[in-house]
């Protein structure tokens, strides 16, 4: 309890630093671009158009049979991008904070936390693109949209947990960065972003036949994306399995991330 209190106090003291770091990243990202923050909206929008065209013409059947494929697709893209950007930038956060933490004392978790927060800010901006796509395609607005905060919030915690663990690992082995890129690419195809797993042919591994819709349940991202779709696109609200799986994955990821990070953090300064 005493320790928790000390942590909270420490965090409270450095909340402005967190704010300022996010502000800095934001300014630097859009400095010298004419459209500035509009890109946060325009970029996913254009990506969405490209993918919708690709999947409904080149790969003929992928888009068919899915209700409002554009919205279905952009939700997957936005949430996956958040996870990808959050973990990817948190991973290098300790390395780029080297000049700072070698000179002054700052609680180290601030840096991965800041990167994931910044990714969230970007994600929130890009939800404008989601709204635009919904308006253009005439998607229905359901009251359950208010529940969308739950998959988003738990995804944030999940991303933070993974980001903390990756940040710690990267300090000691830079290889992690390269491996993670490959891993997220695989994950991208395996998160039901542009297809409905129910429609896919079963996977054949040796003599065993696995249906994708069974296997994909072991991918936490699938649950966050599906949960978000359920509230925003389908208007069905969250099922119990969505609630507890999203929550549990977030808690486990955060616990593991904090554990790894805390055990290693005193050694960071000697390795960067």
């Amino acid at each position: 309890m005493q320790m928790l209190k000390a942590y909270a106090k420490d965090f409270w003291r450095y909340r402005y630093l967190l704010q300022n770091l996010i502000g800095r990243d934001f300014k630097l990202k859009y400095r010298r671009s004419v459209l500035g923050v509009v890109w946060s909206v325009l970029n996913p929008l254009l990506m969405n158009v490209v993918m919708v065209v690709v999947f409904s013409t080149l790969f003929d059947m992928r888009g068919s049979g899915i209700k409002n494929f554009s919205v279905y697709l952009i939700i997957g893209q936005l949430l996956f991008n958040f996870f990808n950007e959050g973990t990817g930038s948190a991973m290098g956060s300790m390395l780029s904070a080297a000049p700072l933490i070698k000179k002054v004392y700052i609680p180290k978790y601030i840096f991965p936390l800041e990167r994931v927060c910044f990714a969230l800010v970007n994600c929130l901006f890009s939800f404008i693109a989601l709204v635009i796509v919904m308006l253009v395609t005439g998607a229905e607005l359901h009251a359950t949209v208010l529940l969308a905060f739950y998959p988003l919030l738990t995804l944030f915690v999940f991303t933070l947990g993974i980001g903390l663990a990756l940040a710690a690992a990267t300090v000691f082995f830079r290889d992690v960065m390269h491996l993670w890129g490959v891993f997220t690419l695989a994950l991208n195809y395996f998160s039901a972003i542009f297809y409905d797993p129910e429609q896919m042919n079963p996977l054949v591994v040796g003599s065993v036949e696995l249906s994708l819709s069974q296997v994909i349940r072991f991918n936490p991202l699938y649950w966050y994306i599906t949960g978000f779709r359920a509230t925003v696109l389908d208007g069905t609200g969250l099922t119990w399995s969505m609630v507890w799986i999203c929550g549990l994955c977030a808690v486990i990821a955060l616990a593991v991330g904090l554990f790894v990070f805390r055990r290693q953090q005193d050694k960071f300064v000697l390795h960067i």
Partner: protein
Amino acid sequence: MKMIEVNNVSMRFNMAKEKHESLKEYFLAAVQGKLQFEEFYALRDVSLTVHKGEFHGIIGLNGSGKSTLLKVISGVFKPTAGNVVVHGSIAPLIELGAGFDMDLTARENIYLNGTVLGLTPKYIDEKFDEIVDFSELREFLDVPLKNYSSGMVARIAFAIATITKPDVLIADEILSVGDFMFQEKCEERMRQLMSGGTTVLLVSHSIGQIERMCDHVTWLEKGRVKMQGEAAEVCAAYKALDPEAAAIQNANSNKRIIEAP
């Protein structure tokens, strides 16, 4: 009242003979049994106590662990053994401008660096004009730092770092930056910071300066405390290492000195 307590602190560094920065290299080395670390103690069993209002000096030759000790006290390094307790707010004037982002303007950097040092934006708002006036760079406030000269960056950094009056001031050498006129201002500012009951921990190679300013002195040699006690006594012993060189340095530093308040 004790302000800084350093109890039996040791700081060990593993100096790997080669750095393994990739998994493959690491495993190869581990398999071949080549993972050797040379243990190096930068500090060994160092204890010191600084009371409120005291000026405590740390002396020693290069590589004796002075800067490591300051970093342990300011929290950058966590000691391998022993512990450090600091009561009250602490301002480390060890390296200026931590967290400066060259792509941001001076105005933005003042806020960023201020919050790195643990100041609140409100406090920085209040002191903003004072910081800018001190650095004499008002007309360049909205220019990115990358377009500044190094002297100008140092001015801004010094102005922010010394804006609060801390309970404990930790300084690696008496800082003064910029041209000779600005150095005069820096020294004036340092004198202000150190006056009126501030506790000061000072590392300096200028033995004359330490002798004049400090009450107590710790002499480090190869990471161990060689001698600790009254300033005059310790400094005399230290200077006895090479009396001639000490005398020359003292004569030189007398030309421009900072008097203890």
